[in-house]
């Protein structure tokens, strides 16, 4: 490691609180990537890209979906509102339940045969997981 990398590593590790209990689900809108990262289970995982908008996290032991990454969030939300203006009622301030985003994406995919390549099933599983975990996200300004 370089000196700079050593300093960076020390900085990162100094932020960890060893006795802090992990709160789940974790749902964060990252403004740098304009992406929502959803972690439902604290399990080692590998990522699997579904399409240009969604990557799922697959648990290494369970082999089940344990989370996901939704990309281009602002465009996703705008697209949903354009197609389904009623979706606006699901946004409280800047908070929205994650399951509603997955539901809206399922509706969009249903009407676009090109996207029905297993994507709907993935969204359905993510919706089920988000609903089970009461996952909500606060949308950032990007």
């Amino acid at each position, binding site marked *: 490691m370089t000196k700079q*990398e050593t300093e*960076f590593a020390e900085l990162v590790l100094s932020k960890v609180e*060893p006795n802090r209990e992990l709160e789940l689900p974790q749902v964060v809108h990252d403004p740098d990537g304009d992406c929502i990262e959803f972690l439902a289970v*604290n399990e080692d995982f*590998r*990522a699997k890209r579904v399409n*240009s908008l969604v990557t799922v996290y697959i648990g290494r032991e369970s082999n089940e979906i344990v989370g996901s990454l939704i990309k*281009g969030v602002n465009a996703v939300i705008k697209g949903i509102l354009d197609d389904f203006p009623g979706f606006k009622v699901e946004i409280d301030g800047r908070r929205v339940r994650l399951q509603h985003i997955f539901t809206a994406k399922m509706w969009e995919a249903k009407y676009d045969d090109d996207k029905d390549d297993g994507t709907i099933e993935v969204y359905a599983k993510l919706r089920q997981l988000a609903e089970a975990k009461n996952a909500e996200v606060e949308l950032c300004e990007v």
Partner: protein
Amino acid sequence: MSAHRIAEVAKRGMGPAQELAKIVPFVLRTPTAIFQGVREDGEAEWLCYCGLPKRAYRRESGDQILPYENEVYLVYVNADRVAYNSRWEDCHRNKKNLPVDYETRFDRRVL
């Protein structure tokens, strides 16, 4: 890497923090490939660094383990050169140092 991202990852525990602290810089410094254009919708300047770390970390304990077989580590960087996401993914079936579907999921390879 933003302070916000560091704080969020640190909240997840020692495993993710170790990954961010040690694997991300390694991949950024010694990538096996760099791809440009990682999404649709005009993000043509965004980059994806691909690498083969020499170790991995257990999420819950932070324990160091061998790297995952047949997987690569990807670090995503936006147009401002801020890393915003990183993770392990399956490698290409023939090119073990590249991510699966690298031929179609990026605009082009720059390294």
